[in-house]
């Protein structure tokens, strides 16, 4: 079983695809769950505190807005932990944890900077044929990562 970082990290379809074929999806839910299930200062809604933008300094300099650094504190460790990544390149309507375009640029860059990390680039399907291309490419990519599969 491989740990696959998904982009958008909030993608329902990617979360499904990765786990459907026996792997673990690393996305926004992974990072948020960790915070929601850890005792700390009360900081609703996401239990992200001013410490997060500080942790984000590992990934972005201090002149980068706090919202970018906070989000990077969420995604940076997941990208470091990942065995592979799937990127949907036209994810223009993503909100919340994926709602900042600058963070998303940096997240994608960080994925591509990790030498040897298998990455599948894909786009959202707009037709039945593209739907088939989408699922078959993902399935093939995931099968190449080893581990269990439903085949």
């Amino acid at each position, binding site marked *: 079983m491989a740990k696959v970082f998904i982009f958008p990290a909030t993608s329902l379809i990617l979360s499904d695809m990765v786990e459907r074929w026996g792997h673990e999806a690393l996305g926004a839910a992974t990072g948020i769950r960790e915070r929601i299930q850890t005792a700390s200062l009360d900081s609703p809604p996401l239990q992200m505190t001013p410490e997060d933008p500080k942790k984000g300094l590992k990934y972005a300099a201090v002149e980068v807005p706090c919202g970018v650094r906070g989000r990077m504190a969420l995604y940076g460790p997941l990208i470091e932990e990942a065995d592979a990544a799937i990127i949907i390149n036209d994810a223009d309507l993503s909100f919340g944890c994926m709602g900042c375009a600058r963070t998303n640029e940096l997240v994608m860059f960080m994925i591509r900077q990790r030498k040897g990390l298998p990455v599948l680039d894909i786009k959202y399907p707009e037709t039945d044929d593209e739907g088939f291309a*989408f699922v078959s490419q993902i399935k093939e990519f995931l099968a190449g990562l080893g581990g269990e599969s439903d085949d």
Partner: protein
Amino acid sequence: MKESEYIPTYVGTITKYVFIDSPDTTPQTLLIRAYEISDGLMIKETCFGLQVTGVPEKVKKLITELRTVDPAHIFVKDRGFLPGDPRRCRANLGGARPGYYGHEFESGLFRYISHGLEELEKNTAPTVTRLGKKRLDEGKLPPNRLLEIIRNEEA
């Protein structure tokens, strides 16, 4: 202002959204099936399907079982919060949490994904063009081709 401590609940559990988008299976059918095999898991009905919370192994087992009901039309997503968490609940926020719009967008694509999954199952679909990353100059007219057009126009 006031700093209060946050004490988490249900530590060690995971929560999954289960979406159903099928001509054959209703959310209710899926819900009944989920209750039948719930094995002590927390199950919550929603308009799109259900949410399930519990220890990871049991949740995975239930999901695997549920998927068999309608494999190409059931979609499962990981969730950081527990169902009905007041911090994410629409009733408290006044409007939907931001993630909801992402679901709304992607659920509009379920039909293509379902089609793909069905074709994959049949294993009969022809190979199609691969979807990839668009390059910066993709779709742009090469300069030579432009010159050619100008020359043809002038001729």
